[in-house]
């Protein structure tokens, strides 16, 4: 089974091809250039390196969100375009699950933290039983206080990772009451290989979708929709008084 993995949900752009138990190629860049300019050239590069016949791919796994709205759409549109051209199914991987899976096999709890701005983090809490990962808290957008409170209740050693770590480090160091540490550089950001390996598991259990049906999962409304909802709420309050 050969899975192409894509992740452009954050600052990192990453593409990988995983076949059964082998990572054939992975290209990850964490640099300011826009994903629109990097993602497909990176895929082109690794495809040439490993003489990849695109038709031999079984499915395309993509980090579906949360993340940067534009970044997610670049990844999704790339996956959808490939799916359409190659007539292959897509696999939508929750971004936070993908980050957590970098630490597959850990005996500690794993808590990815993405910087979600607006005083929030995209996060979740995971534990591993061998290769299989279980979400104790599924990915969500919450304040750092909320997730650290939950981490504290588990009373287990916890590894934090993700681009939210530098943002929330001070808070964690002052408020986290369980033993904790931060994942090292090679494991602490989005990696398309992790997305692709989770993709294999999804594929094996039939969790695939058509390229047409795939859409990002932002975990958040757009600003205009939020303001509209707020207006409606205010209006309803006004009429109920």
């Amino acid at each position, binding site marked *: 089974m050969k899975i192409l993995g894509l992740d452009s949900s954050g600052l990192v752009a990453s593409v990988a091809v995983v076949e059964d138990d082998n990572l054939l190629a992975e290209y990850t860049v964490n640099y300011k250039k826009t994903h629109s300019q990097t993602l497909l050239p990176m*895929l*082109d590069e690794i495809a040439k390196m490993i003489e990849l016949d695109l038709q031999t791919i079984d499915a395309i796994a993509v980090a579906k969100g949360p993340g940067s709205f*534009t970044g997610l759409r670049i990844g999704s549109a790339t996956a*959808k375009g490939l799916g*359409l051209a190659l007539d292959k199914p897509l696999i939508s991987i929750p971004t936070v699950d993908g980050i957590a899976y970098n630490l597959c096999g850990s005996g500690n709890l794993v808590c990815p933290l993405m910087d979600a701005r607006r005083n929030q983090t995209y996060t979740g809490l995971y534990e591993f039983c061998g290769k299989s990962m279980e979400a104790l808290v599924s990915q969500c957008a919450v304040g750092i206080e909320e997730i650290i409170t939950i981490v504290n209740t588990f009373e287990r050693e916890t590894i934090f990772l993700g681009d939210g770590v530098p943002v929330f480090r001070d808070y964690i160091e002052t408020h986290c009451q369980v033993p904790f540490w931060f994942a090292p550089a090679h494991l602490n950001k989005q990696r398309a290989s992790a997305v692709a390996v989770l993709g294999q598991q999804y594929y094996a259990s039939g969790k695939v979708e058509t390229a047409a049906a795939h859409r990002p999962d*932002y975990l958040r409304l757009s600003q205009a929709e939020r303001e509209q909802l707020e207006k409606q709420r205010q209006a309803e309050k006004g009429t109920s008084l």
Partner: protein
Amino acid sequence: MKRERNKMEKKDNILILAIETSCDETAAAVTQNGRTVLSNVISSQIELHKLYGGVVPEIASRKHIEKINQVIEEALREADKTLEDMDAIAVTYGPGLVGALLVGVAEAKAISFGAKKPLIGVHHIEGHISANYIENPDLEPPFLCLVVSGGHTHLVKVNDYGSYEILGRTRDDAAGEAFDKVARAIGLGYPGGPKIEKLAKEGNPMAIAFPRAKVADGPYDFSFSGVKSAVINYLNGCKMKGEPVVAADIAASFQNAVIQVLIEHAMMAVEEFGLDKFAIAGGVASNGTLREGMRRACEEKGVRFYHPSPILCTDNAAMIGTAAYYEYLAGTRHGWNLNAVPNLKLGQR
């Protein structure tokens, strides 16, 4: 991007799949040899944006990604072609809303990469101008073209396919934008263009003398924020004096002020450059009063007047496919690093 004019193989029927997502329409089309449209699918989000009184960029981008594959698949199905039949994949890469453009650009790049087809990035305005080729087989450059839409107001001299000279442009609001803002001011809602046009039919275009701004250092440039402000001032004046407001007269007089300026500039260019063909394009080009005014002005000057059908005035992908065909012939090919360029200049490559 590189041009490889000489390496091109000769082929009778060039089929292009074109994608357009620069604003609030998700569109895909299949064109044959540029001027024959085999399919032209447009999924409009207009109902959604009405709720907000205008296009919300983030919502537009979200809708594009949800609809894009269905729209492309429908375009291929309607054309009765497969991706394999295509000679190139074309996409609008600017100008427009960056988030919206990026969906089409990333999708088109992935399709051309996956299907091993050349990629051609197209300028949105070049698309609008090219819409005139579709229904007018006799139209060939050089000619003059006025592009008027919600985002653009350009008076362009089309020297050749892909070769443009911008004579004038708006210094502030686009003509269509002024229509939207005035419509909002007189309570008509979004989108303003068709609503103003409809209401103006019942009004007197000479009732109120709104200003027709000239731009001192640019004889062909436009300025529409003045007339928009004049409408708002007029409304406020009426309110203060307790005078009744005749919305139909305002609509008719405002529309007249805008259209007269457009026609004057256009005819000035016709005189100066001595061209005998004049075309209009863009969303506002479906305004019946503008068309009629231009047609008459052109007739008086003995100039042939061209305009696309309304469906080809609005944002669509057929026009992108038409523009792409001439780019294809010129050897334009883009690389996998093609990016969306929200303020892309016409003629920039």
